[in-house]
Each structure stands twice: as C-alpha cells, then as structure tokens.
C-alpha cells in the first residue's frame, strides 16, 4: 500500500509542474499589465509604476520569473498578493473551508438523493416512477445553475422570506451558529448538488440494471438468498464502483460549479475569490489558487484509487 501511494505521489510531480507552467503562461498571456491596472486612476507616476514592477519581479524575462516563482514555491513561498500585500497562499487557504463545507453538503445531498433514485429507477424500470426520475435527471442537467439560483432566491428569500438571500452567515451571528449556517447553505448546496443528483441517479440506474442481469446475481437468487441481500450485498456494491470513479473527479466538478454558485449566492469561497483575483490580475494569488486546487485534486484522485481497492475486491493494491 505504501509503495502504491508513494508511486502515485511521484507521478503527481510532473503533473503539477505541467499545471504550473500552463497557469503561469496563461496568467501572463491575458491582456493587460497588473500594475497599470491597479494604479489606473491613481497618481502613481510612470516611475512609481516601474518601481512596483521591479518590486514584484515583473521586469524580469518570463523564464526567470517562472524559475524564481518555482524556487520560492519549493520553499513553500507563494509570493505576496499585489492587492493585499500579504501571503498569497495564506489568503487563498482562508477561503477553502467555506467552499469545502458547501461542497461536502452538496456531495452528501448528491449521494443521499442520487444513489437511491438510481436504484429505485432500476428496480421500477419501465414504470412511471422510472420515467419521473429520468425526466428529473435530464432537467437537473438542463437547468442552468445561475438561473435556478436566482429563481430560488426570489421565491424563498424575497417572496417567502424563509431563507436568507445571500452570504454564509446572518450578519452579527456567531460563526459557530450551525443552524444559521445551514439555513444559508440550503439553497446553494441544493443548486450545486443538482447536476450530481442527475449524474448519480442515471449512472446508478444503468449500473444496477447491468449488474442485476449478471450471472452472479442469478446465482445468488438461485442460492435462495432473499431479494434484499441480493440487492444490497451483491448487486449494489458492484454497481457503486463507477460512482467511486466519478467521485474522484467530483472535487473538480464541485469547485467549477461553486464558482457560479458562489457568485449567485455571494458565498465567500475560493471560486469567487480566485475570480476576483483573476479580474484584478493578482498573479501570485491566481497562481497560488490554481496550484493549491491542483494539489487537492491530485490528492483526491489518489484517494479515489485507494477507495477503489476498498470497494472492489477485484482490484488489488501492491
């Protein structure tokens, strides 16, 4: 197991270097000069602007800038934000818990709703229940998240005043007030989970149908096992394998989705923060954000591979 993990981690290094180069280049290829941007409208002189560019190392050739960044990076230094004048990584990391709690709740909803829906659809195949679930699945994919978010805000916050319209906590509430936090999370987590619910229910339906038609299930039936044991012990465990595969990429999906959701619900997470940094051309923060997200993603894929082994007895780990 240890060699397996180590090897995976080793493979992650070239991936991360590749990502670092792509990020670095894309960030700098986008039009506009960050120093010109944040001094626009100020009384900074041309000389002030050159001095700032020198201070941030932006007057160096790109390869030197990149090497400099990497050199600092291996020492854990992501550089200082142009805007905040503080450590870029520390800034970004502050926003992770906010996105993560939203993602975890959304993921929980996805699994708790999506998996049973898929199984039910498979078991009731061809009935109106199956049809309803499938239509629901298509709708989950088709409805744009930002639109649904706005509609839900209008209905539940503005009209009914049952739920808050935005933010993570009521102003003035204690950060540990979980009930208040949950109230704020309900709408964004629901919208964020919608695509996942659709995905999982469809995936589970297909997989369950396939597994149910396999020999070992027939054998299990033949052995005289009851329906429930066949379903949950034999069939479902196998049907869940592709769900685990999908889970590995879920972080990417949730972070991507969170960017939109965070904007609609004014959720102070990494999506909104990184977006703002991109607009402001705050290079160190964008780079730190992408690298940390990439690292998290790589870790999540490694965890997925380990989870495979646990779920599927056929996959061994050396």
């Amino acid at each position: 197991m240890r060699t397996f993990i180590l090897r995976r981690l080793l493979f992650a290094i070239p991936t991360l270097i590749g990502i670092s180069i792509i990020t670095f280049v894309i960030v700098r290829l986008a039009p506009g000069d960050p120093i010109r941007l944040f001094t626009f409208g100020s009384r900074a002189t041309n000389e002030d602007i050159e001095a700032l560019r020198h201070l941030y190392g932006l007057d160096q050739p790109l390869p030197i800038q990149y090497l400099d960044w990497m050199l600092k990076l291996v020492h854990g230094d992501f550089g200082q934000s142009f805007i905040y004048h503080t450590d870029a990584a520390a800034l970004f990391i502050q926003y992770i818990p906010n996105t993560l709690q939203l993602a975890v709740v959304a993921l929980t909803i996805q699994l708790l709703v999506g998996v049973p829906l898929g199984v039910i659809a498979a078991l009731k195949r061809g009935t109106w229940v199956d049809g309803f679930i499938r239509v629901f699945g298509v709708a989950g994919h088709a409805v744009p998240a930002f639109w649904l978010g706005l509609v839900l805000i209008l209905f539940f916050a503005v009209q009914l005043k049952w739920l808050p319209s935005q933010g993570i906590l009521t102003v003035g509430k204690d950060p540990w007030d979980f009930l208040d936090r949950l109230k704020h999370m309900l709408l964004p987590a629901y919208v964020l989970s919608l695509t996942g619910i659709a995905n999982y229910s469809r995936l589970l339906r297909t997989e369950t149908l396939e597994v149910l038609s396999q020999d070992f299930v027939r054998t299990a039936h033949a052995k005289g096992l009851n329906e429930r044991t066949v379903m949950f012990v034999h069939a479902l465990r196998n049907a869940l394998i592709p769900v685990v595969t999908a889970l590995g990429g879920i972080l990417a999906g949730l972070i991507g989705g969170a960017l939109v959701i965070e904007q609609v619900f004014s959720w102070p997470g990494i999506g909104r923060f990184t977006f703002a940094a991109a607009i402001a051309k705050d290079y160190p923060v964008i780079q730190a954000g992408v690298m940390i997200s990439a690292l998290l993603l790589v870790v999540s894929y490694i965890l997925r591979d380990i989870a495979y082994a646990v779920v599927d007895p056929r996959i061994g780990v050396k």
Partner: protein
Amino acid sequence: MSHPRTGRALIAALAASMLVATACAGGTPSASAAPSTAATATAAASEKPQQGGRIVEGTISDIATMQPVLVNDTASGRITGLIYDGLVQQDAKTGEVKPKLASYTTSTDGLTYTFTINDKANWSDGKPIIAQDWLTAVTAVGKSATTVRKSTFQDVVGFNDLCAPASSQCKATASTISGVTIDPASPKKFSVKMTKVSCPAILDLGGATASPMPTQVFGKYLTATSKAADFDTAPENTNPTVFSGPFKFKEWRKGDQVILSKNDAYWQGSPNVDEYVYKVVANSTAITTGLKTGELTFGSIVAKDLADMQTVDSVKITKYQSLGYTFIGWNTASPTAVGLADKRVRQALAYGIDMDAVIKAVVFGEATKQVSHHVPVQWAYPSVALEAYKYDKAKADQLLKDAGWIKGADGILAKDGKKFNLTIATNSGNTERETLAQVAADQYKQLGINAVSKPEAFQGLVTKLTTGDQTLEATIIGWSLGGDPDPYQIWHSSQIPDPAKNVTGFGFTYFKDAALDKSIEQGRNPTDGNCSTAARKANYETFNKILNENQPYNFGYSNNVLAVSQKTLQNFAPASFSTIYNVHEWWIKK
C-alpha cells in the same frame, strides 16, 4: 460565469487622489456624489436618537487593506474613512474644504499651511492625536514601496529628501522632512512648507489619505533602519488596533464582511449605533435583493433595478448626481480614424448622437447629459453658457461635409479615397457601456460612418490607453472625479502617452492646446499665488470652454447615484462628496 464583472478592478482614487476609472456597471458608486437636492432630510431630525443596532452596508468589492497609505480602491477607502479621521474634510454637498480633526490657516504667500489638531481628539487608546502622528503617515508614504502616493507630497519641502527608493523624485538621503515643523509649545500644532503654491495641496495634506497614523503602533516600522517591507506588510495594516474615527475595527471575514464596532472615545461623540458592517455581496442584483429583504441597511443600486425598488415600502431612495461621468474619448491622433483629428468631425459626432435618448436607453433616464469635464455639483463647473450639442443630424451632416467627408455610393463617408471607419472600444462585462457603444455605433452609422462597437477586457484596455497604443480609435470609459477639481492628470499635455519617450498617462485623446495647458496650470499652481475659489473658477471656465468647443471627448453623461436605505435608518443623508460624513449621528429607529 454568469456575471463577468470587474470586481476589484474598480480602482478608486480617494479624496486626495484625483480621478478614478469606474470599471464596473454594477459597482456601488463610491462616496463621491452630487446632490440633486432630493429630499434627504429625515423626519426624525427632531427626535432623540435611539442607541444601539447595526448598520449593514452592501457592497460588491471586498477591502484590500485598512492602511490609508496603501489604499487604492473604493472599498478599502470606505473602511479607512470610518476608522481614521483626516485633518480636513470636504463639505458633503459643495466640496468646499472644511476643518475636521484639525483647523488650518494658510500663509499670505500661500506656501505654508499651519494645522492645529482638535484638543479633544484622542486615539481610541486614550493617547492624544498629535502632529507627530500626521508625520508618521507622511513618513510612511515616503518609505513604503507599494504606496502610489509619493507624488502627492512631492511639493512639500524636504519630502523628496526622505522618500525612497532613490528615483528622479526621491533622494532617500534624509530621515526627516525639513518642511514640517512641529510647534515646540504644542504637540498638536504643526506647519508644512511647500516648494510652490499648489491649490490642490490642502486636500493632499489634510485629506483622508493623509490621515494621522498612530505613532505608538506604526512608529516601530518607520525607524531609520526599517525596510520598506516592514511597513508595507505590517500586521496592523490588515488588523488595526488603535483608531481616530467613529468606529473601531473588530473583524474581517475575508470575502464576506468587515465588522466595525463604535468608538466610544470618538472626539465628535460616540456613534449611536453599536456596529457598522461592510457586507460584500456578489453583484448589483444581490444588493437589490438584500435591500428588499432587509438584510442590508443601505447600498447603491443600478438604474435597471430602480423601478422594482420603488415598489418596496420599507426603503427610502435618495437620488443624486454622481461626481463623475461616462464618456467617449476620441483618439485625435489616430492613424486609422483620421477624421477624428478634425474639430468639425468631433463636433459632428456630438451633434449626431441623441444623448438624451441614449440616456433613456442605457440607464433608464438616470443620468444627465454632460458637455464639459467638470460636473454641475463641482464649484469648478462653469457659470458661463456652453454649447449644449443638442441632437441635430442636419448640422452633423453639414459639419462632416465641411470637413470634406462625402458619402460614397455605399452610403459610407469617405475623404481622399479613405473610408470613415470607427471602432468604439469599451470594457466588456460592463453592460451599461457595452450598450452605450452599441447605440453610439448605430447612431453614427446614420451619419455615414462605418462605426462598430468592440468590447475588450478592462485590464487590457487600461494598459493600451495609458501606454499610447494607437490601435484604439474611440474608447468609452468613465472618470470618477475626486476631491479637488484639478484636471491636470487628464488634460495637461504632459500627460499624453508617448511610448518613444517612455511617457505614460491618461491623456489618451492626444488633444493638445496651449491655452488649455495654461488654464490648468493657473488653476493648479497660480503664478500670483491666488488659490481662491473665484480665481480658480475663472481658469476652469476657460478650460471647460476649450474642451466644450474642441470635443476631444464626447462628454457623455453623469449618472445619478441611487442610494437606497431602510426607512428605519435615520440621519442618513448621502450627498455629493460624501456618504459617511455624519455616520456618528446615524441611528436606527426600532
């Protein structure tokens, strides 16, 4: 992304700085605004203020710092304005400079300012606010590597000896500023000597961006051996501990809210409310929603949401003209749109667009047509009549014809075999400006100009404008005019970008006029030393007349600020130059 906005790109200049490009359609307009004398007086003026409660201001940008020396955005400027007081302030309605933390006098030669800090003024830790604290702030500007405000103090005698790193301005040879003298008899009294008369200086020296800084906190980062980074990355810049303003910093939940609590020791009296929360939301829609649900106490909405807001009983809407304008800047030196070099063509472009109709289409009528640089609420706005450029297509056609532009068989104007093509650029994601560019292009097409609109990323546009990129023919952006009406940075010929000489600046129309330069110089550094409003106003009349006639910009329009507050909020009376000037008097009716 559903709402690409320019968020933090909303770069601001505060009281002492001069101008700002408002990049964002949905941006909460900054504190600067002009009154339309909408009924802002509250019925509760005679009532006794109730204590307690919380003000929640809705905004779309998080702050970046709480250090006035480093502030370069509207959001951060709001918070530093609530926790630190400046020596002087501008009258909220007229912009006239008035004492705040200090009273001041000017010497007869106009070269020396003497400030006396109010006896009652103490820091929140009980220590008196003294002259040294102002010197600490100015020293910080001199030593900081990341401030953009060194040029603000360049005319203070001795500042350039102190400021670092060495440059054409800074010598970095002294550890004190020779032109600043603290009265030996009173630590609260000091004088500042200038190298030349500079009319905007009083706001540079005494405005919010030069607020005294607690020496007991920041002194240790500004010793003779301190490095620039010591101050620039001081923890108290983002976690301040001692205050001079009506509120004290409590907590900054990044990306979400800044929480301030009242400063009981405030020299003008403790605020009535307990807390002031600066709540960051995603966009203008979220501000409108938050005001409707009552989650926000006040905020500014965009024009498209006004009709909706007018149906809400629980809020009060205060309208006033903003201290800025949105314009189309013509590149009079464009090698591709050569017609723009001719004054008659630019005048035709003014007559040929129905700006009143545009205002209706673009901002639902919530703006005023603008034909000069200064806006009506500024004292520098000319009293003399200016050409109003009322929509007159026939006149526009005639002017184009006079200038030699004749319609070809395809209906497109041409001169010397060259067609009149015109690309109007603006920052993408800003719906208001994109619509304006579209409508303008449509109207100019009717004149026979092959006009197209071209949205571009604001980030790239800014670089092109300031560095002299000649591919831009016409550009729609906006200025937010700061405290002093000095237009030097936008209109003086020294500010015209010239890549060959490595000169950059905001003079991206390339319009140059000796009389214009002179009027700007005389309004800024008068040779007779006369900084009176009347004398300066005369210069700005000449200045605005030249611009009005020559039309290097189509001056576009000046938006109304639409401030919305809960009816429970009392004494809230935002005006032209400030929203929070009387925040310690606000109270919430229960």
